[in-house]
């Protein structure tokens, strides 16, 4: 009666069994299948699904309105379930005449996770750079909202990166 190893269930014949070529084949195939699994892990460790969206298309933001950035490369859809460190930088392309307050918030499926605030009393448009962790499922959508107080419109672009820390078992 063939038996199996305790962890990976590699099959082997027991004393008294009639040994055939199939016993060699079965053991070899079981080891081969396990090595194929490890190969997938090795590929994953070396090629993490990290993303760096460097310069989104610009978007015009009105004052006093929480506005979701929607232009190309300002959002990201998670491809592999895992824990990610997400960093966003919302940068002025054309600054408004006056700006006193800025806030960028990072959302997961439209739920705010974290943000970053700039107090701009000197009317200097400075980047808002929220960075935080998100536990995400595949298909989750990462977006950013931007809010400012001041006058005139504010044209911004976003830089978004997501670094995978670990998979979800």
């Amino acid at each position, binding site marked *: 009666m063939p*038996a*199996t*190893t*305790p*962890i*990976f269930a*590699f*099959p*082997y*014949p*027991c*004393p*008294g*069994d009639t*040994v055939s070529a199939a*016993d*060699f084949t079965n*053991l070899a195939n079981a*080891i081969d299948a*396990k*090595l194929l*699994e*490890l190969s997938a*892990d*090795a590929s*994953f*460790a070396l090629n993490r699904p990290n993303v760096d969206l460097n310069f989104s298309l610009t978007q015009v933001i009105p004052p006093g309105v929480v506005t979701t950035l929607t232009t190309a490369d300002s959002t990201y859809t998670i491809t592999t379930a895992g*824990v990610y*460190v997400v960093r966003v930088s919302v940068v002025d392309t054309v600054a408004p005449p006056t700006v*006193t*307050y800025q*806030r960028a*918030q990072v959302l997961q499926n439209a739920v*705010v*996770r*974290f*943000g*970053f*605030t*700039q*107090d*701009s*009393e000197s009317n200097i448009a400075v980047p808002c*750079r*929220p*960075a*935080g*962790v998100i*536990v995400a499922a595949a298909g989750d959508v990462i977006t950013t909202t931007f*809010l400012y*107080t001041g006058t005139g419109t504010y044209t911004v672009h976003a830089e978004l990166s997501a670094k995978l*820390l*670990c*998979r*979800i*078992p």
Partner: protein
Amino acid sequence: MMTLSCPEPENYAAIAKQLHETALEAEARIYELEAALRAAANLPTIVQTTTVLRTGLSSGSESLIGPAFGSGWAETFNNTAVDSDEQIANNDTIFQVLGDGVYEVGFTCNAIPSGAADSNSFRQLRIQHYVPDPTSSGPLQVGMRLLDHASYSLFESAVGNGVDVSLVGEFRINAGDVIFFTIQHNNTSSTMNISIGAIGWVTKLSEATLTAVL
């Protein structure tokens, strides 16, 4: 290196035993390899989120915040051997379990005045790395030595939203060391609250020792 001998005509009877030994040896080697690869693919990570509004943080002094010290919290993610009821900050158990290493530590929160907001008042968030005093029998902070910290200061615009703060730092931490998340502010017109949903996390990037120089 695994060595596999070939059966000869005179020991065919031992083929079953040899296949058994081969299977066990392959399993042992692959088990070690799998553990190493899984560790590389799944960095040990703990994420915790506060579930209670933190209130009463006075101006002019540093307050412990986050998933520790007076806040209710929930474990959002944990793929380590650390018990789920251990807080990642203000606790020397975390790095006893996770061991020496290079860690990324982060914290995000919304700090909002409980009453009047002083325009342009500061909010300084810090992640502090301390070495405990093994001779101290008092609270964790007593006798501790500050080894490293990351900090960021932001300012209040008094538009009613408070200040969203986020901070990430890398630290070389030894087993038994402690991290703290703290905030200090100078909003003298009212105390500070930390909104529900503050997130703290710890992830082990690598072991502490450099095994090869390229």
